[in-house]
């Protein structure tokens, strides 16, 4: 019973629909009905275009419905509607033109139009022109994002049309910029494109380069005889030159089917094995085939018998190369556009080079700040006091772990850093004082023993950190306001944390100068360093001064550890990674002189970044060369090591 009732119902409704006036959008859809139903990416173009360019207000909703697979065709008359699901078997159809409900239909009387992903992308592109005019600026921005993702020639006209009425200044600027890029890629006239290229040739954006690059792309092609007209030839190439080595040229001929393939050694071997009969090939016993000469002889015999392809001789290769012309051909058809793109890219490359130089300098500066931070404590203990402390790196590590532990108790990042810095100073100050009292003071005029003893402390502390905190890296999270970067342009940017470290380095420099030159401790430290006995005679307690100075240097290392921990992961090897560079920084700059340390850090930072820039793929090689360079510089410039003492002081 039920099917019959339904059938009658359908009949009535469909009749009503057919009777109704067919709207303009429906007419367009009907016109391309077959294409729409067939749904192939290759053929669907005209249908989408017809809807999109119809100028009808409903076009957008049709495309949107199409894209989300909500268009249904009524099988009875082939008309298209927007379908709304009521339940799994019944759909409500809505007319596109009127927006009115046509009725409810069982699913089996309808056919869903299911565009595949390729078609959906095409529809999406067509939709962009509507989104460009959408009242919501966010939608317009989305449309621009879509254009940037897939710059399509068909979007050029709608984009241009949408600029006029754009009210939002930011969106308008973006629209104009993308319009220029689209013009470069897809403009209709050569003049128009060249003009756009000229206009964009000062822009450093990656998208500009991405747009220009395809225009200058060339492909090496081989031609028998002359190069046909109509090709945009970049330059002719002669085989055997650097641009086109002989082997490559011949391989090109082989690949384009213009010459027979050469027979390599492996191929000869395979062929001989394949033609091995009665333990011999080409009349040569298998046992003798362990020599090139015998193999060639056997292969020659086989080739003459026609069993294998003949060898290509050098003379034949030369002849083939002579018979052909090689040229690099632009993919872009217009010579004027290609030339303009070449020169624009060259100009951009210049500017990018300058910007990269500036970026590199910033990078180097921040690396220098890190080295300076790592070395400034050492500038006190080693530079001023002359104590070789191999455990200095471990003090940095202790500072970083202090920061980590504090963050376990104080979840607020800014507060935790503010707590950690003085605490790290206190911890490493204590460790430094303890070490000075227990070990170093017994070894003041024994630098080599100091080196070895502090090395013993260093390995003990490292292992201790491993035992307590484990071998995996511990995070030290920076406060939110230190996240992000200061972006100057597409090439130059520097993260806030690096700026903070730079500032911190300057602050420490100031603190160092203040303590050494403006405080009693600094005065006494310098006195004790220069002449311990005399200082003692003046009423200075050298033991106390040494202890405090060493503690101060160690404490600064602790604070530096907190800063470095924010920038790098906290591990037990953290300090060891910096110790050699720190010593180099102090030594290269000149022991006992904070400005020298600053200079040393700057020099090493810039040097390392410079070497990395020359050889970006191989940081190991960069480090190797840097160390060798520093060794040579050190040997040549500071042969005395210490500030070269002159006169009587250098005596006995």
């Amino acid at each position, binding site marked *: 019973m039920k099917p019959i009732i339904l059938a009658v119902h359908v009949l009535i409704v469909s009749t009503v629909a057919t009777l109704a006036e067919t709207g303009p959008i429906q007419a367009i859809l009907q016109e391309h009905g077959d294409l729409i139903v067939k749904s192939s990416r290759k053929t669907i173009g005209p249908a989408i275009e017809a809807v999109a360019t119809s100028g009808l207000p409903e076009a957008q909703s049709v495309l949107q419905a199409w894209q989300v697979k909500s268009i249904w065709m009524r099988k009875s008359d082939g008309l298209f509607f927007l379908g709304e699901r009521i339940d799994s078997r019944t759909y409500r159809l809505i007319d596109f033109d009127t927006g009115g409900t046509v009725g409810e239909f069982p699913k089996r009387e309808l056919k869903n139009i299911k565009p595949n992903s390729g078609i959906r992308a095409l529809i999406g592109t067509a939709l962009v022109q509507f989104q460009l005019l959408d009242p919501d600026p966010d939608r317009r921005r989305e449309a621009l994002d879509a254009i940037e993702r897939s710059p399509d020639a068909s979007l050029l006209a709608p984009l241009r049309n949408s600029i006029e009425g754009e009210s939002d200044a930011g969106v308008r600027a973006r629209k104009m910029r993308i319009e220029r890029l689209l013009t470069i890629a897809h403009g209709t006239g050569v003049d128009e494109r060249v003009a756009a290229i000229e206009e964009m040739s000062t822009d450093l954006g990656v998208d500009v380069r991405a747009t220009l690059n395809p225009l200058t792309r060339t492909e090496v092609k081989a031609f028998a005889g002359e190069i046909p007209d109509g090709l945009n030839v970049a330059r002719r190439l002669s085989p055997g030159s650097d641009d086109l080595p002989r082997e490559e040229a011949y391989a090109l001929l082989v690949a384009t089917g213009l010459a027979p393939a050469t027979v390599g050694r492996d191929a000869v071997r395979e062929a001989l094995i394949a033609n091995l009969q009665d333990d011999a090939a080409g009349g040569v016993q298998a046992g003798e085939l362990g020599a090139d000469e015998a193999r060639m002889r056997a292969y020659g015999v086989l080739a003459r018998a026609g069993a294998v392809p003949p060898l290509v001789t050098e003379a034949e290769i030369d002849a083939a190369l002579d018979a052909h012309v090689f040229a690099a051909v632009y993919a872009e058809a217009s010579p004027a556009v290609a030339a303009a793109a070449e020169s624009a890219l060259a100009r951009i490359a210049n500017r990018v080079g300058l910007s990269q130089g500036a970026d590199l300098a910033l990078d180097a500066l921040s690396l220098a700040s890190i080295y300076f931070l790592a070395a400034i404590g050492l500038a006190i203990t080693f530079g001023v006091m002359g104590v070789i402390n191999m455990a200095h790196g471990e003090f940095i590590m202790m500072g970083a772990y202090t920061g980590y532990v504090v963050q376990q108790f104080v979840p607020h990042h800014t507060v935790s850093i503010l707590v950690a810095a003085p605490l790290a100073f206190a911890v490493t100050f204590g460790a430094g004082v303890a070490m000075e009292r227990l070990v170093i003071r017994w070894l003041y005029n024994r630098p080599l023993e100091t080196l070895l003893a502090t090395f013993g402390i260093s390995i003990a502390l490292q292992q201790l950190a491993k035992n307590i905190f484990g071998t995996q890296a511990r995070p030290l999270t920076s406060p939110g306001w230190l996240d992000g970067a200061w972006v100057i342009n597409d090439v130059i940017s520097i993260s806030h944390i690096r700026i903070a470290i730079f500032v911190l380095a300057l602050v420490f420099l100031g603190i160092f100068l203040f303590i050494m030159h403006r405080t009693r401790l600094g005065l006494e430290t310098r006195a004790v360093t220069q002449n311990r006995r005399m200082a003692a005679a003046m009423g200075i307690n050298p033991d106390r001064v040494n202890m405090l100075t060493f503690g101060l240097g160690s404490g600064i290392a602790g604070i530096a550890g907190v800063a470095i921990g924010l920038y790098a992961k906290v591990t037990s090897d953290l300090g060891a990674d910096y110790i050699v560079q720190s010593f180099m920084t102090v030594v290269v700059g000149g022991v006992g002189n904070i400005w020298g340390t600053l200079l040393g850090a700057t020099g090493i930072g810039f040097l390392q970044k410079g070497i990395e820039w020359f050889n970006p793929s191989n940081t190991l090689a960069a480090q190797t060369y840097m160390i060798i360079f520093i060794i040579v510089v050190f040997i040549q410039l500071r042969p005395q090591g210490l500030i070269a003492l*002159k*006169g*009587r002081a*250098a*005596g*006995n």
Partner: protein
Amino acid sequence: MSSLLEVSGVSVSFDGFKAINNLSFAIGDAELRAIIGPNGAGKTTFMDIVTGRTRPDEGRVLWGEANVSLLGLSEARIAREGIGRKFQKPTVFEDQTVLENLLMALRNARGPFQVLFYRPTPGDLDRVHELAGEIGLMDALGRKSGELSHGQKQWLEIGMLLAQEPRLLLVDEPAAGMTPAEREHTTTLLVAAAKSRAVVVIEHDMEFVRRLGCKVTVLHEGAVLAEGSLDHVTANRKVIDVYLGR
């Protein structure tokens, strides 16, 4: 008389301070000479320049009959040329025996390979014993030199200098910290040494200089103030000014 060592127009400054200022000085073969002068007069720096430890900013230092320039030669090379130096503080190799110290100083080939295959000849040992007798350390040959008394170390160092057989001996305050008897012995050693070679002695102690009985050069502010017999220079007005203060 041709001179053995001729220093002319030498100047050197350390960080702006002129330690030696246009100094000229000459000494002949087999001459004993004392250099006196107040602290900071440039006496030790003068020795530093002659022995190659300090490079002068300007001037010439010529050596021997062939007038070889000593500037630019290494300390070791200058020592091999025949200039021996004794430091103010006794510097002997304290971890080694008196015998080893003297053997090392003995005039023999100095290259590492010759030294590696060197074994002392009877002649060498005789010479060492002779020297040990001269410096009064005959009984101490097998002792570590670090165990010697201050004066004995001074003598050992003089013995080492003599073992080098230098043509010029530069001796910096040899009598400092010695007992009167030790001074006596030291004077004898130096006077004897000066019979066959040139000896330059730096000394503060006028009494010691008087006993040496030789020509005296007075240095002041890096230049020669006066030269002559001790009586002559002590009568010099400028010298008195320098020593007593103006």
